[in-house]
């Protein structure tokens, strides 16, 4: 009987040990003696690629910088990047691939707001340390998830900051607003309505357009007829360009505010002189500032010529997130674990990235709540300059 029990218990013991060691190994996946894997899923094809590619370039710059300095405690960082084409199902699969097949130790990114929200259960279940930098929406940090951190500022706060600034600068003026018919548009409208209520703004035009709309002739004609003097253009990229071009055609130039997803230099170039003097809000430094110029100088030798041309504000958000993550892993010493990295991310206090205000998290705080600043476009130099 004893022999039988011994025979039975040995494989069980072995299986138990293997299972335990497997769990221990799983907690430290993506790490070898020489390498540490960081994964990312972004829209690299299709129209949102303008954002996804730029963010991934930011990650690459931070990683190249760290690797040139010897890596994380002697381990070089390997960056694994997946394209989701802005398709939610593909984001989920991409994240699963990066975690399960590429065995990433940590994640950066991840794609758009809807995609990040959808992928949250996968990230939570896996427990992988993740720093999100592309689409900061409240759902990602409310309630706080143990392993998911968000660098940035909420869309609502951004809009409130911009509209408050424009309202104080243009007292008693008539307002116009146009938003997209998606979650982004609703967020913009919610932020706008908050200030309208608080400051009792006189809104004479409030429009809504279908995502993908390219012709804004009737919308802008209505805006003109309403006599709006301050205009919040709630489009993203092509929409804002079309709106400004249309206003130029109609020979009207209201004080215009745009939001950060569209605050990228190629947009300004496409708007032409019509884009001169528009106001924007952001939590990253404009490239025309000293910090922005320093960042470009730093980036130049670290990325290819094509990648350098693809740099925009999302490169800065990506860079900051990667810096924060790399610093947290580095603080874990020679044998970083997921638990340690999460704990160190939580302890992140006033980390300087050079491209935005210092980044901090805290116990139960998974959102860095970045400081906002207002900037104004300058078409001749194709740049945005801080307004203070």
């Amino acid at each position: 009987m004893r022999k039988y029990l011994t025979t039975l218990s040995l494989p069980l013991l072995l299986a138990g040990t293997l299972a335990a060691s497997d769990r221990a190994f799983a907690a430290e996946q993506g790490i070898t003696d020489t390498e540490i894997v960081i994964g990312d899923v972004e829209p690299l094809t299709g129209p949102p690629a303008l954002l996804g590619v730029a963010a991934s370039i930011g990650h690459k710059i931070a990683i190249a910088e760290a690797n040139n300095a010897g890596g994380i405690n002697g381990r070089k960082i390997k960056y694994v990047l997946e394209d989701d084409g802005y398709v939610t199902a593909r984001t989920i699969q991409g994240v699963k691939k990066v975690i399960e097949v590429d065995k990433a130790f940590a994640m950066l990114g991840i794609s758009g707001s809807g995609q990040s929200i959808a992928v949250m259960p996968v990230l939570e279940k896996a427990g992988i340390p993740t720093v999100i930098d592309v689409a900061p929406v409240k759902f990602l940090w409310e309630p706080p998830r143990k392993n998911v951190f968000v660098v940035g500022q909420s869309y609502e706060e951004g809009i409130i900051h911009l509209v408050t600034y424009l309202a104080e600068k243009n007292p008693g003026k008539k307002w116009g607003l146009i938003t997209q018919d998606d979650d982004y548009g609703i967020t913009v409208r919610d932020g706008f309505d908050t200030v309208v209520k608080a400051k009792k703004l006189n809104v004479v035009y409030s429009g809504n357009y279908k995502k993908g709309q390219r012709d804004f002739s009737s919308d802008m004609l209505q805006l003109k007829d309403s006599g709006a003097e301050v205009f919040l253009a709630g489009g993203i990229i092509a929409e804002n360009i079309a709106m400004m071009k249309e206003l130029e055609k109609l020979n009207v130039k209201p004080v215009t505010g745009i939001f950060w997803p569209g605050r990228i230099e190629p947009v300004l170039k496409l708007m032409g002189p019509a884009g001169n003097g528009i106001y924007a809000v952001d939590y990253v430094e404009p490239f025309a500032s000293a910090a922005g110029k320093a960042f470009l100088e730093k980036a130049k030798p670290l990325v290819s010529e094509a990648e350098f041309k693809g740099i925009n504000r999302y490169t800065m958000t990506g860079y900051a997130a990667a810096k924060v993550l790399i610093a947290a892993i580095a603080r874990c010493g020679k044998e970083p674990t997921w638990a340690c990295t999460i704990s160190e991310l939580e302890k992140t206090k006033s980390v300087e990235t050079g491209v935005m205000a210092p980044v901090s998290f805290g116990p139960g705080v998974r959102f860095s709540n970045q400081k906002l600043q207002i900037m104004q476009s300058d078409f001749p130099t194709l740049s945005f300059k801080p307004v203070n």
Partner: protein
Amino acid sequence: MRTRDYKQTYRELVALTDSVPVWLWSAILIAALIIAPHILNAYTLSFLTIILITVVGVLGLNILTGYTGLISLGHVGFLVTGAYAYAVLVSKYQMPPIVGFLGAGVIPALASLIVGAPSLRLKGLYLAITTLAFSFIINTVILEARTVTNGARGIAVKRPELFGISFESEAAFTYLCLGFAVLTLFATLNIRRSRVGRAFVAIRDNDIAARVMGINLHTYKLLAFVTSAFITGIAGALYGIYLSFVSVEGFPFLLSIEALAILIVGGLGSALGAVLGTVFIVLLPEATRLVFSLFSTQMDALFSTGAQELKSMLYGVVIILFLRFQPRGLVGLWHDVKRTWVHWPLRY
């Protein structure tokens, strides 16, 4: 070895299959599918889950387009309606998931009556455009009905618990999808063998002749729409649960095209074709990536960073190749192989 089909009784004639090897292989396949979730990692398992959900949706479309010959470009409209029906009933109104699944079938089925009615007078391209318009209208309705659907904000959906069984884990959810896929497969196979199924096929082959034979075109065309939308709605609910977040953005128009591509590649009007086509189309980009990664790591990276563009190109090439060289699809290819195997060395 069997060389011909000799059916001597009605029982043999209406049997799903009289071939023991087919039952045997089917049992082996089911057994493999039951074991798979315990062996595969989360990434590979996600392909299996997607395949099973897609099989349900494509079998739904197959009833309308494959059996009845009514082309639908707007089936994503039924998919998104099913997903929202489930999300609203279960996540918003806290109803049991079983009610959610029922609603995911019934609500798109009711919606299909709206789009099905014009089909009584429209055919071909005109019907295709009508169904396309329906998918756009349904998106607008969802976005505008904010009090019910949360508009563009979408609705978060949790994994269900049915009859005391939790489908929270990836493996459990795959089993749920497998259950629905097997049920749908048997349902569509049986529909095809029934009087209703034969009426559908008669309408597809020649609607005037079908009418002359006493088939009520109005009733059967609407029935095809309702059945197809019911099944597609269930697939929508499963897809919504898989995404864990239901929003209009999660159901792009491209899904309608992808479903039609699956039917063309698999073989129109065949349940087996729908299954083969789904497996082929879903796995094609990954299989291509694997093949190319054997030759070069750069190609692997290219497939990672340009996956969606390459995927669209691959779909295009495959559809062209199938239309040109194998219009009967994979199921046609399978029949050719089977015939060659049986008759070899004779050609026929």
